[in-house]
């Protein structure tokens, strides 16, 4: 907004300069002040109903709601003015008269905005005593994953506005009037929508809950790590939430360039695979007709031997869920005779979120299709499989090898399997290298719009598994084709040097919101 005139004002004694039209609540963030609020959300139209964000503006007799009051030149805003603090205390007291004291059994505890503000600014004791009844409405099952605990609802209407404006399908309403009001649905249409789970994130309290997450963990037990969703090629930014080493939840991470504040239900609920117990625990090599565990040095040595002696094509069957770094290093390991192929599951029918431009659950259900294409892999899996018996060496990278003719791999002598779990079809492999999944490593994916985005490890790798970029990097070094990268960042730097589309990019440049590829879509890629 470089062409918007700047307005300078003082908030809590801090002078800030923001574009004209900015609301005080947003301007306050720049001053380092979080003005308490419920109904306001930057991804939704302003409602101004909770009355929590009342602030004192010098010169005005009445308090103003910061979410809907635009900044004015030389305005002096006092968030913690006694009048404003008293008003917010009043709002909190009013909210608590009908809100049940469910904290011990409520999922939101520990990440509840009602708890947070009451502790900061609320009354220590209740005046709604001794025998006033609390409003009672029954719990409602709204749909596939969403439960509505009506008693806890503070009527902020974020959920209603999300369905109406972001999802463009008003499935939720406010029913009734006054203190009898609650969030309702019509019996003919439940909250069965590709993006419905976001209402649970938006709910400031424990009123809208995820059935999947119900009573599973306490918020303060969870670690949150920045990552990227692997559900499709949209590349929504997510936070992987773990309780010790179990992934218990995925939630969206804001990125204005990709997913705003939201993620779809398919991606949100696709995390259980991350907790699979049947992981390959150690590197394996073939000895006397069977696969036996060994150490990394031995496994890498044998794999390098296979590749070094290769007198023909090295086919890499890769999953479009492998990291960009791994895909690149697999190509390098294959050398001059590299032929890379992938396949991607496509589910017909995209599910857009109309309120956010260019956001949808995509048909390609893998996170790094664009990465694979940019690195020279083609979507020619079946053709590649048909030609496997002619290949000198076959490297399988993260591919599950499901739905393939059994015969396809039967004759392959020199199979190097790089993966997380060992499928039946790969039991004929010469070398098996156990690698980490997205939640256990650093790496990047390139989304369908060509945006390169980092993800971070949320938990330790099981057994002896190492990141695929590391294993392949070591392999490349063994083949005397360069120094092995010591970190994922170095691996990425190497890739950026060699592949023009990635020119100028680095982990530092990517940050946690990503950056676009340079140049256009490489030849031969699907749109």
């Amino acid at each position: 907004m470089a062409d918007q005139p700047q307005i300078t004002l003082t908030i809590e004694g801090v002078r800030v300069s923001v574009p004209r039209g900015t609301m005080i609540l947003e301007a306050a963030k720049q001053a380092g002040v979080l003005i308490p609020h419920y109904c306001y959300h930057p991804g939704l139209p302003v409602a101004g109903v909770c009355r929590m964000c009342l602030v004192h503006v010098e010169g005005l007799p009445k308090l103003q709601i910061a979410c809907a009051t635009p900044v004015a030149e030389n305005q002096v805003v006092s968030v913690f003015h006694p009048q404003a603090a008293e008003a917010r205390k009043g709002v909190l007291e009013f909210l608590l008269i009908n809100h049940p004291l469910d904290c011990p059994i409520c999922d939101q505890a520990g990440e509840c905005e009602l708890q947070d503000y009451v502790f900061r600014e609320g009354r220590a004791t209740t005046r709604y005593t001794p025998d006033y009844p609390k409003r009672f409405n029954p719990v409602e099952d709204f749909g596939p994953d969403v439960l509505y605990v009506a008693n806890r609802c503070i009527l902020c209407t974020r959920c209603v506005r999300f369905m109406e404006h972001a999802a463009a399908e008003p499935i939720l309403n406010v029913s009734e009037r006054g203190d009898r009001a609650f969030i309702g649905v019509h019996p003919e249409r439940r909250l069965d929508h590709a993006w419905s789970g976001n209402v649970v994130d938006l709910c400031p309290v424990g009123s809208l809950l995820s059935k999947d997450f119900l009573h599973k963990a306490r918020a303060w037990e969870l670690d949150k790590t920045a990552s990227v969703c692997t559900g499709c090629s949209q590349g929504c930014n997510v936070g992987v939430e773990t309780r010790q080493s179990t992934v218990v939840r995925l939630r969206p991470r804001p990125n204005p360039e990709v997913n705003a504040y939201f993620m779809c239900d398919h991606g949100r609920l696709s995390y259980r695979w991350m907790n699979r117990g049947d992981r390959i625990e150690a590197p394996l090599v073939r000895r006397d007709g069977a696969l036996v565990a060994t150490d990394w040095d031995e496994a890498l040595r044998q794999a390098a031997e296979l590749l070094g002696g290769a007198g023909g094509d090295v086919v890499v069957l890769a999953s479009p869920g492998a990291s960009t770094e791994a895909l690149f290093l697999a190509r390098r390991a294959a050398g001059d005779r590299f032929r890379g192929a992938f396949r991607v599951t496509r589910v017909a029918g995209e599910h857009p979120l109309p309120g956010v431009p260019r956001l949808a659950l995509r048909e390609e259900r893998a996170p790094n299709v664009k990465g694979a294409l940019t690195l020279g892999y083609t979507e020619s899996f079946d053709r590649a499989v048909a030609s496997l018996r002619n290949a000198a060496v076959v490297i399988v990278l993260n591919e599950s090898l499901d739905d393939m003719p059994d015969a396809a791999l039967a004759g392959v002598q020199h199979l190097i399997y790089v993966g997380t779990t060992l499928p039946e079809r790969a039991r004929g492999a010469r070398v098996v290298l156990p690698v980490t999944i997205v939640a256990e490593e650093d790496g990047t994916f390139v989304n369908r719009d060509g945006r390169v985005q980092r993800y971070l490890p949320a938990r330790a790798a099981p057994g002896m598994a190492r990141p695929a970029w590391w294993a392949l990097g070591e392999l490349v070094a063994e083949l005397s084709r360069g120094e092995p990268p010591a970190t994922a960042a170095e691996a990425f730097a190497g890739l950026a040097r060699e592949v023009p589309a990635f020119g100028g990019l680095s982990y530092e440049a990517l940050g946690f919101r990503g950056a676009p590829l340079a140049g256009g879509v490489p030849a031969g890629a699907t749109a």
Partner: protein
Amino acid sequence: MGYPHKPHPKETPVLSQYFGDPEARTYAGWVKRGGYEALKKALGMTPAQVVDVVKESGLRGRGGAGFPTGMKWSFMPKEKTKPHYLCCNADESEPGTFKDREIMRWTPHAVLEGCAIAMHAIQAEVGYIYIRGEFTEPLRVMQAALDEAYQEGMLGPNACGTGRRLDMHLHRGAGAYICGEETALMNSIEGKRGNPRIRPPFPAQVGVFGKPTTVNNVETIVAAVQVLNRGAAWYKGLSLGNPKSTGTKLFSVCGHVARPGNYEVTMGFPLKDVIYDMAGLRPGRTLKAVQPGGSSVPIINREEAEAALLDYEGCVAQNTMLGSGGLIVYDDTADMVYQIMRLARFYAHESCAQCTQCREGTGWTVRILERILAGKGEMKDLDLLLDLSEQMTGKTICVLSDSCAAPVVSGIKRFRNEFEAYITGARQPAPTLA
């Protein structure tokens, strides 16, 4: 006219002169009484000229806010780049008020004529008359009048033969006091829940259907007809108190009076004369309290009522407000605690549920008052009520919450002894309905 009573000699019947006169309802009857002359005159003036006349007259909104009408009309964009709308607020739901109902069922053509004048002044071609759902007779009478007005060419694509398009439609409400709030009214016309809107933007910029809109009360609208007919100077001259309050006002006198009804007096008229001379107390009773402007204004005691002049400033001077002119009279038999509880129940029932303070506070106020009436109250409950009322005042999107607080605060201030009697047990608990 103190309809249904004969006019009292001290009244100034202007808007009410045809109350009870069935012929005035018809087009022919209305024309015979000078009807539609004001509209024809207005259509021969420019919109700006019409606005100036109304500004000059000092006419102020009669729905309760008292905002200068001419100034309100002047907020509409002068240059018309999109459709402009008029909404006539006939949602009359303020307890104690029953003037618009009379205006509509006795002089429906006055309402149509006034709307047409307003539409011309604000350059609107379409107007909606929002009539509350319970007003079955006004709905019928207004529809019949509307049909006549179209037939006679007063309205329609060629209003009064001037080539100007003036289309009006009735819109029936469905049971919500809050739809009398102008932005909630607009939402209701749009087919939404009757939730008041945050401002800015204001209706004159973004109103019904997102277009510039003016909302006027029925009484204001018909007063405009008289202003155009008889001139701004005449209207301005009708002022007994503060010169900023001009014209006449219908006061809907009700409650503990002998002759309830609408009494039309000049602005600044003494309140005590309306109560004692015109409506009269019931035999043997004395005056205890009054709300001169509907249930949302502070309750005043006898001393204040006897000193008050009925204009905007005069009521403020006696710690209350003119409001809608719904004049509720409480005599010495009135149980103030019970009635204030009943008023709180009204507001709790009507709260739209948007703002936390109103949604929860009105209900809590009711529960405290019910407990006091049940003999289970404590002295600290009174401080609690005052504190809650403070938090319910000046902090919400609309003033329904403030309106619940006003009778509570003023009631406790002036009739604390009655509350204390219930708390100490000096008075037996009162049974409440439901």
